């Protein structure tokens, strides 16, 4: 069993056990390693399309999802990850091999090669895949949260929105609806400095995103998004607030997108020196320094985790690479229940437009 250390100075915060600290580290490291493998695959042209990184934002992804009730039977909390929430997705139970198959468009990916990257769903584990159109997941998760409230379930819906996506009408409509219905929806604005090339100052004139909370009449809070403990604490409070029936919450994390929008982005628009500043605030390094400096965890425990992560990631990579691409005819997949799409008449054995 995990030993929990008492609440004296220098003790582990938030009532976390040593095992939990290691668990958090595992997820931070796993997120980073999976992305590193994806970078390698991308450079080998094995990733189809774009590659989106969360380097530097792992504390936000991991710390926030860790605040949730995680189940694998469809009774836990629900999330809809945004593009920088690979860590949240895996925290809920998505596996590295699933992620890699998604990126490589394999036929046995969770979407059978139809959709990309983190766009996939598992209701039992508690995540709903996003679509590209920014903002719409706020509407969807509002409905998820409303349902929890209407049915009297004490579950919570959590989702994230970029500084950029906060400008969408979908964000406004979905979040206002959740607020007025007191739905248990927690939304975290990931203020990572940019939306593609657009800096936050060209996205909003407001001093902060959490300043919007009052305009929606909801609970608001803000923290350092590169500090796992801060993110976990802030999210836990908001989740408790929502779970207790007090309605929606709007949170803001201050973090930074260290890589470009996607792997192809050369980040020429980033001012000199800015990246270095944020390298110095690396969330994984900070976390490791904190937990080892404080003596909560030994470096060798972390080395073991590193070893384990590497093994798992390597195995996943092998599996994913060995996975087949989908068969062409699988394109006729069901769009409607019970009926596959129609094959083109020009590809029939005996081409005949009467069969179109």
């Amino acid at each position: 069993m995990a030993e929990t250390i008492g609440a004296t100075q220098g003790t582990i915060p938030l009532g976390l056990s040593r095992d939990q600290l290691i668990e958090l580290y595992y997820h931070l490291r796993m997120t980073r390693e999976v992305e590193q493998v994806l970078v390698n695959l991308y450079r080998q042209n094995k990733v189809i399309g774009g590659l989106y990184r969360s380097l530097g934002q792992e504390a936000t992804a991991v710390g926030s999802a860790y605040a949730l009730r995680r189940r694998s039977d469809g009774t836990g909390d629900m999330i809809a990850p945004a593009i920088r929430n690979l860590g949240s997705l895996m925290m809920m139970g998505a596996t590295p091999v699933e992620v890699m198959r998604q990126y490589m468009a394999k036929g046995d990916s969770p979407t059978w090669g139809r959709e990309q990257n983190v766009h996939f769903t598992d209701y039992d584990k508690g995540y709903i895949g996003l679509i590209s159109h920014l903002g719409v997941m706020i509407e969807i998760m509002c409905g998820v949260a409303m349902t929890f409230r209407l049915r009297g379930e004490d579950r919570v819906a959590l989702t994230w929105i970029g500084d950029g996506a906060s400008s969408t009408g979908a964000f406004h409509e979905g979040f206002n609806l959740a607020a007025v219905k007191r739905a248990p929806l927690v939304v975290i604005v990931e203020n990572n400095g940019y939306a593609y090339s657009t800096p936050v100052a060209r996205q909003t004139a407001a001093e902060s995103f959490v300043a919007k909370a009052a305009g929606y009449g909801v609970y608001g809070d803000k923290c350092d998004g590169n500090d796992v403990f801060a993110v976990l604490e802030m999210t836990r409070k908001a989740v408790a607030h929502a779970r207790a029936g007090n309605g929606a919450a709007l949170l803001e994390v201050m973090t930074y997108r260290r890589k470009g929008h996607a792997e192809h982005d050369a980040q020429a628009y980033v001012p000199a020196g800015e990246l270095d500043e944020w390298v110095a605030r690396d969330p994984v390094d900070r976390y490791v320094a904190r937990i080892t400096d404080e003596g909560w965890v030994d470096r060798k425990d972390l080395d073991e985790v590193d070893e384990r992560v590497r093994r798992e990631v390597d195995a996943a990579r092998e599996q994913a690479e060995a996975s087949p691409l989908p068969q062409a005819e699988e394109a006729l997949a069901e769009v409607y229940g019970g009926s596959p799409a129609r094959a083109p008449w020009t590809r029939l054995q005996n081409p005949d437009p009467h069969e179109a």
Partner: protein
Amino acid sequence: MATAEQKVSDEMSREKPEHVRNTELGKPVTMLEAIREALWEEMERDPSVFVIGEDIGAYGGAFKVTEGFLDFFGDRRIIDTPISEAGFTGAAAGAAHMGMRPVVEMQFMDFVSCAYEPLTNYIATSRWRGSGPVPMVVRGPVGGGVRGGPFHSQNPEAAFFHTPGLKIVYPSTAADAKGLMKAAIRDDDPVLYFEHKKLYRAPFLREVLEPDADPVPLGVARKHREGKDLTIVTYGMMVHESQKAADQLHEEMGLDVEILDLRTLLPMDEDAIVESVKKTNRVLIVHEDTRTGGIAGEIAMRISEKAFEWLDAPVLRVTAIDTPVPYSPPLEDYFLPQVSDIVTAAKYLAKY
């Protein structure tokens, strides 16, 4: 909070109001009443069904379709919303993911344009993307002829007709309205359900319905009038205008017009169309929507693909003109397809 099951039994103890018991009592119903009864009965039958939209609670909706529902079903199943069509349409999809069967009311279907993005991108593709089916209905009033002007008169079917994953229903009679609503609610795919506001209370549509009638299956056209000389493919309000034209054509020249009421526009019952074309060899398509890009095109295309050999004349269409819906009566009357247009077109085809 009460569970859904508890709530349902609570409700059952209350009295069902008179105005949703017409069919039970053997009284005739208007199309609006038929829709109301369908919603009510589905809500009674299945606790996962709820209605969400603007002013549907205390007010009972702009056209009073959900009048009396709030008192009986409570505000957890009759949900008033802020003015945010995209927001509550998307939220309905989220609820559907969680096992609910939402019915979304658009105050006027003209405002479904505000929910175009979630409907065509998120909702229509969900099943295919592996995020599961999205059983939900988006319903509301459509159509012109009521001097509603350009933003309270639209027929938005063509905007959604192009999106694989959506279904579109557009009834023309009270019985179909009820049966199709039931089928739409029970269907696992997202359904847009269009209610012609001029038919809502039309006295000539009043009919006594079977109390235990089955749902009307989606995707199946209805032969509104049997004939052998010419097929009119149509739906909604234009079924009745076509009927008038057919009567006149019969009287004037003994022409025997067949009228096919599509009822479901997507998926389209092409078998029924083809079968009728093979019998009559002449087709006129009539829709109230504007001309260019209206769904007549798809119908003509399918006839070309599947029944070209049987055509004795070109496939023609009668539609509204290519403008927004004008407000002033003389303009709107000019804008809309008229019985005389149908008669003229049918005569042309008959003589071809």
